[in-house]
């Protein structure tokens, strides 16, 4: 566009002002992108999980365990390919702030059900064969600097005492929202350690056909409805989603802050464009005298405004994407926390919108500028 030179020199007219405005937008979009990523990451966690896997837990609450006898009755259900189970261990590694999820699993059946975890064959065998072996996510290895074969001790809280493990396998999830900071060990080890005083925390059921899920859910829960431990069965997706809701109304909070941030920066950008506009009244009058159309001036101001915000916005959005790459600290709380490309694009769109809105008043004023009066003022 041949008018780019004109727009460019206008931007450079007051370098400090342009730079500060660009940086303001950078900072705001960095924040906006990061906040939005919290929402998208939590949403992604709700999406993780197979439709063909069901979780059966106690209807009273997630923290209540289920009778061992349920295993055979679940296996006998039609359409069920396999049944496994797991328990929440809740141990402490060194100190309480090193939080990560530890699960005691029925190792053979559980691992077979989760092809999402990519594990080298030799490590898989080593994990399955050794009673005190641990399967650990890659993120956890990096976080604590663990190595294969290393011994790790956890202090039990629900199951008191010190528990020793050896890291025999590392998994990489094919979907980051699955979480790469999980710690799996043998249920049998736990069972022995508490002298058999333990029953499954929840059952995981692999169905042959995901379409059979609703019917299976209904059957299972009705089967146990009047027993001492009524169950609540749901798809794994639904189960994960309900965990996310425990956080509370994060979505609303993030949206509210995001809106405030957007408007705060809009004001800064609009102020800049207005100041620039005021300075150029005389020049705009001259341009119109030379024959520049009203509409052209409108577009020139708008393009200038969008260039500022888009540049600032791009810097902020990409800074956020880089800052929260794989293994970032937030991913210990929120699995797979990252800045998705869809968020990047949304950020750029917001930046463009920001430019258009902040430039609209000065653009309008330039368009509507009454030339003769403006010329008089210059003279």
């Amino acid at each position, binding site marked *: 566009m*041949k*008018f780019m*030179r*004109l727009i460019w*020199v*206008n931007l*450079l*007219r007051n370098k400090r002002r342009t730079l500060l405005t660009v940086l303001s937008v950078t900072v705001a979009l960095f924040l906006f992108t990061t906040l939005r990523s919290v929402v998208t990451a939590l949403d992604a966690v709700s999406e993780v999980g197979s439709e063909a896997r069901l979780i059966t837990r106690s209807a009273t609450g997630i923290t209540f365990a289920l009778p061992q006898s349920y295993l055979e009755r679940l296996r006998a259900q039609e359409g069920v390919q396999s049944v496994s189970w797991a328990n929440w261990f809740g141990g402490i590694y060194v100190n309480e702030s090193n939080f990560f999820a530890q699960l005691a699993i029925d190792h053979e059946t559980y691992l077979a059900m989760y092809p999402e975890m990519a594990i080298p064959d030799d490590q898989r065998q080593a994990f399955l064969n050794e009673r005190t072996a641990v399967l650990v996510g890659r993120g956890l290895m990096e976080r604590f600097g663990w190595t294969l074969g290393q011994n790790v001790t956890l202090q039990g809280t629900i199951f008191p005492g010190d528990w020793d493990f050896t890291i025999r396998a590392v998994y990489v999830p094919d979907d980051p929202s699955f979480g790469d900071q999980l710690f799996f060990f043998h249920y049998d080890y736990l069972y022995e350690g508490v002298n058999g005083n333990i029953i499954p925390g929840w059952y995981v059921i692999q169905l042959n056909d995901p379409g059979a899920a609703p019917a299976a859910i209904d059957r299972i829960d009705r089967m146990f409805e009047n027993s001492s431990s009524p169950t609540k069965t749901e798809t794994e997706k639904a189960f994960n989603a309900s965990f996310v809701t425990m956080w509370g109304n994060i979505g609303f909070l993030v949206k509210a802050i995001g809106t405030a941030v957007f408007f705060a920066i809009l004001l800064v950008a609009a102020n800049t464009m207005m100041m620039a506009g005021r300075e150029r009244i*005389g*020049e705009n009058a*001259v*341009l*119109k*005298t*030379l*024959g*520049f*159309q*009203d*509409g052209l001036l409108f577009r020139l101001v708008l393009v200038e405004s969008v260039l500022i915000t888009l540049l600032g916005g791009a810097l902020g959005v990409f800074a956020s994407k880089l800052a929260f790459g794989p293994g970032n600290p937030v991913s210990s709380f929120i699995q797979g926390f990252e800045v998705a490309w869809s968020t990047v694009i949304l950020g750029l769109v917001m930046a463009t919108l920001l430019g258009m809105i902040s430039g609209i008043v000065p653009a309008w004023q330039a368009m509507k500028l009454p*030339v*003769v009066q403006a*010329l008089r003022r*210059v*003279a």
Partner: protein
Amino acid sequence: MALVEIQELTKVFYRDSQKIPVFDGVNLEMEQGEFLSLMGPSGSGKSTLLHLLAGLDKPTSGMIFVGGAHVTGMKRKELAAWRAQHIGFVFQFYNLLPVLTAFQNVELPLLLTSLSGRERREHVMMALDVVGLNDRSDHYPRQLSGGQEQRVGIARAIVSDPTIILADEPTGDLDAKSADEILELLKRLNEELNKTILLVTHDAHAAEKAHAVMHLDKGVLSR
């Protein structure tokens, strides 16, 4: 038809509810290649006449034709496009864009055409050559003297080969020597390149450079 025809032109300004008549039923004709100056006391409406001719303002009544085009009948958008092609304006305070070089300032009217970058360059250098400033083409206005700035202003006014050049007190802000140079330049443009020029001034000495001098006083135009 003459190159410029002003028929029964009337302009009344309104400030708050007060009516301020500027001129009433003014008539004027200019031929191609004429160099005319217009004198009158301040507030007599000389600049207003130029603005009306350039289509920057609309008269209360009357008609203006320039080069056969019915200026007073055109709509805003048409006027802008027409003005870019047919009017060259020279201002008292030069009105160059301080962020652009001399070259880029002169190039501005050409951005509104469909000329290629190379073609624009040719025209700009030619215009700067005519006003004798091609060695200063990449200087910024702040690096130029008042006289040089005005020469750039004139180059800008002729670069798109307009039908008529309107000069509003072009020497008003210059010292005597620079003012003289500018007036000589305008005279040369008229004599050598056959440019039609309407010069508005309150300086009798400047006015005399033209073929003829007209007076505008109390809304009445007289030779």
